[in-house]
């Protein structure tokens, strides 16, 4: 089960400004999915190591040689608001 307040909190963490209707729908849907997921509690995981990755790889490195990267122009070519060779964004402070 997940409460409406928790859904709003998670939406803030996720940077999603959900509509009221979406919050209602997601409260029901996430609760139902979590009910299924809660069955994982039935599995004995005592002393089991977590798997984050299936390949037995460690420290894959290449030689530290400088090489060209994307040109600034190219990197900015898809930006919604490029300005003076940078990505321009609105102010972090809401205008009063």
């Amino acid at each position, binding site marked *: 089960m997940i409460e409406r307040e928790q859904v709003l909190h998670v939406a803030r963490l996720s940077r999603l*400004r959900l509509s009221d209707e979406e919050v209602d729908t*997601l409260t029901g849907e996430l609760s139902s999915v979590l009910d299924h997921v809660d069955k*994982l509690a039935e599995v004995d*995981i005592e002393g089991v190591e977590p*798997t984050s990755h299936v390949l037995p790889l460690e420290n894959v490195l290449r030689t530290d040689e400088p090489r060209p990267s994307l040109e600034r122009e190219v990197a900015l*070519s898809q930006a*919604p608001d490029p300005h003076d060779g940078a990505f321009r964004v609105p102010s972090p*402070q809401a205008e009063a």
Partner: protein
Amino acid sequence: MADMQLLAASGAETAAQIAAGEVSADEVLDFWLSRAANDRLNGYLWKSGPESAREGGAPGGPLSGVPIAIKDIFCTEGVPTTAASRILGGYVPPYTATSVSKTAAAGMPMLGKTNMDEFAMGSSNENSAYGACLNPWDTERVPGGSSGGSAAVVAGGLAPWALGTDTGGSIRQPAGFCGIVGLKPTYGAISRYGMIAFASSLDQCGPLTRNVTDAALLLEVLQGRDEMDTTSVGIEGGIKAPTAERLDGMTFGVPRGLIGEGIEAGVLARFEDTLIRIAELGGEIVDIELPHAGHAISAYYVLAPAEASTNLSRYDGVRYGLRSSDEDLLSMYELTREEGFGPEVKRRIMLGTYALSSGYYDAYYGRAQKVRTRIVEDFDSAFAKVDFVVTPTSPTVAFRLGEKTADPWTMYLSDVFTVPISLAGIPAISIPAGLAEPDGGGPELPVGFQIAAPAFSEQKLIEASHALEQAIGFDGSAALEGGAR
């Protein structure tokens, strides 16, 4: 050469026809471009023009001149790439995915970019922001997903073969629904560079083809270590076209405990038929247990959304893609993401963020990672006894559009046989096992048969699949003409 002959030829056969001078590469390309132009399945989100397609395919390679369709999750320099999301509407990547560079270097012109579930999240292709894709066997039904467009264009005769990606079944399930072959290689066999990330510990590129030989040829082109992806290792010794005709001495494990509830009668019947075929070819059928595989969907729907919520945090309206609102920075982030993502993507971001959030991390993410270890161990134990693990690819045949959209969990269960294999990171293939009526009646539809093998044993998997495919003798020609108007 007559159009019907071009349409009926597999990728390997087309390459042979070009090499023998029976048809020119230009003729082949013009034929497939005109098929793609008449797409009635909404299989393509973007189609190449004759000039751009020709540029893509360098001449001289063994598969030179055989065009290919590319899932719209692969970045293609100068060609729009959306992952079927509004948030990437109009995005034109400044670089190309390694897999696409490799098919181009092998001489394969790109026909277009195929439809998919948004960010590869879905099992029906209904989560595309650009409209559902239709199954060429019955246009009232889904092609499966998330590589639904790639499966539909191959089965419906709109491309000789295609690239897809598989995170929890996204190549195998649509291949099964559309009556074609779909191969998910071992995690690490193929570079993920330039493949838009969904769940990075699971995502893997693979081929969707008319037959097993084509899958082998494409896998050989695609596999290999790539310095742009530190998790790519390639397949030692490479991959050769299969020649096996028998299965003598090979053992096939059937996890009976997993194949129970929710499986359609017709699907089960074709599965049992296929087990008989295996025995006829000299293979041995053994009952096995995968005690934790029944928990795979639950573990997957913690792990994959957790990874997705992290990967998709990059879509913030700053560097590329959609930007909504210029009010203040936080509003820009929140409104861009609210407007840009579809319902299933939001659901998974929310689920993943919740599972990773303070106070819930150990209970959800940490626990799911340990259950994943249990599932890996299940397969290790199984492969100590058998060469392969076999299941139906999906519990049902292709379902109707809209049939499973009301309840997310019902849709997720479509991947009950494919997800355990994804969590274990091992290779698996879906080959057509015949046709079956859906429960409740109606025209017959394709059924997929899934074969899984230990990590990096793709050659063995391909040989066995080839022998079985020859014995089954599936005929997919009924759907082949219907993809085009």
